[in-house]
């Protein structure tokens, strides 16, 4: 298996030859560009981060077969659909765009160089403006903080005493006031 991985490494000097590397007879050179899955010359070639060459349809099918355990078929390094690099040989532009075929081959990843003057205009450039929308619950918050609903009062008078009666009366009064206020808020 180790010699296979040696074979699969692409020599930079030869990488331009693309699809037409094999004549059938010329096995020695051709095997350098063989897909590690179908053992044929790689079509729509992609290379993994660990350096192993595959046809994109072959690798795609392998990744589909083991969705939970995606490893390189050669060296079992962890691989990922987004981390394979397509190989574009010279002359391959004449062919049909491989991405139009199914399954689509992942595109190459290239980052634009940073522009020289990076003045972004007060931070209001492409995504500098934010707007938020929300509904407050002001009156209810107001009530709970003013009338202490739901909280234990500091000095609850013992049952039966006149003070207890008074407190009961007061709490009922305030409750009714609150309800009236609510009703007024809703119907007014």
């Amino acid at each position, binding site marked *: 298996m180790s010699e296979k991985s040696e074979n699969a490494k692409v020599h930079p000097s030869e990488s331009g030859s693309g699809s037409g590397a094999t004549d059938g007879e010329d096995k020695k050179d051709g095997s350098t560009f063989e897909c*590690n899955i179908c053992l*044929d010359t790689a079509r729509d070639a992609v290379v993994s981060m660990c350096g192993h060459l595959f046809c994109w349809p072959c690798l795609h099918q392998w990744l589909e*077969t083991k969705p939970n355990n995606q490893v390189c*078929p050669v060296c*079992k390094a962890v691989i990922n659909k987004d981390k394979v690099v397509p190989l574009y040989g010279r002359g391959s532009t004449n062919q049909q765009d491989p991405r139009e075929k199914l399954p689509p081959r992942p595109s190459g990843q290239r980052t634009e160089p940073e522009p020289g003057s990076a003045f972004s205009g007060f931070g209001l450039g492409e995504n500098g403006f934010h707007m938020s929308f929300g509904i407050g619950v002001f009156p209810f918050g107001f009530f709970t903080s003013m009338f202490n609903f739901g909280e234990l009062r500091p000095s609850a008078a013992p049952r039966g005493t006149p003070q207890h009666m008074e407190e009961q009366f007061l709490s009922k009064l305030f409750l009714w006031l609150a309800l009236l206020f609510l009703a007024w808020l809703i119907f007014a």
Partner: protein
Amino acid sequence: MANIAAQRIKREFKEVIKSEEVAKCAIKVELVNDNYTELKGEIAGPPDTPYEGGNFVLEIRVPETYPFNPPKVRFITKIWHPNISSVTGAICLDILKDQWAAAMTLRTVLLSLQALLSAAEPDDPQDAVVAKQFKENIDMFQMTARHWTNVYAGGPHVNTEFNEKIKRLQDMGVDDHQARVALSSYNWDLERATEQLFTARLTLVIFV
């Protein structure tokens, strides 16, 4: 059969035939049918093991989803090994199950099986009886494995003591393979093997 499977097996077949292991007679592959779905493999027992000098025949079935799924391989030649069933020849090897990778080939599978013969994994057994013997009595295991290699795989080491015990059981009307299995399972203790064979028969008779 899916095109990719047949194409690949054809290429692999050529690869194995040309490989240096074939030149050294270590591995061999033959076609069983024309559409490359079934093959016959052969591996030589590795040196310095009880399997030395034997030739082990394998049945290789290629699934339609090959090479995305592993080939189904089992031993046709009877073998005494912790990771291979002495009854069915089924193999317990990770690369033939969940550790299969699409870049593996017939050649690597056969070489892995050869490696399995020289490095058994008794903690992940296929045949519990063999694995127990391997762990508890390694000398007995090696003698038994060598005897099986001699009888079934053409190995050179003849064990006259074992052969005599089998002959004794054969004289009682037991089939030679059955006698060998019973004796092997009971560390070549003739009494216990006889007991096991005949109580099994007795229960069968009662059952019938």
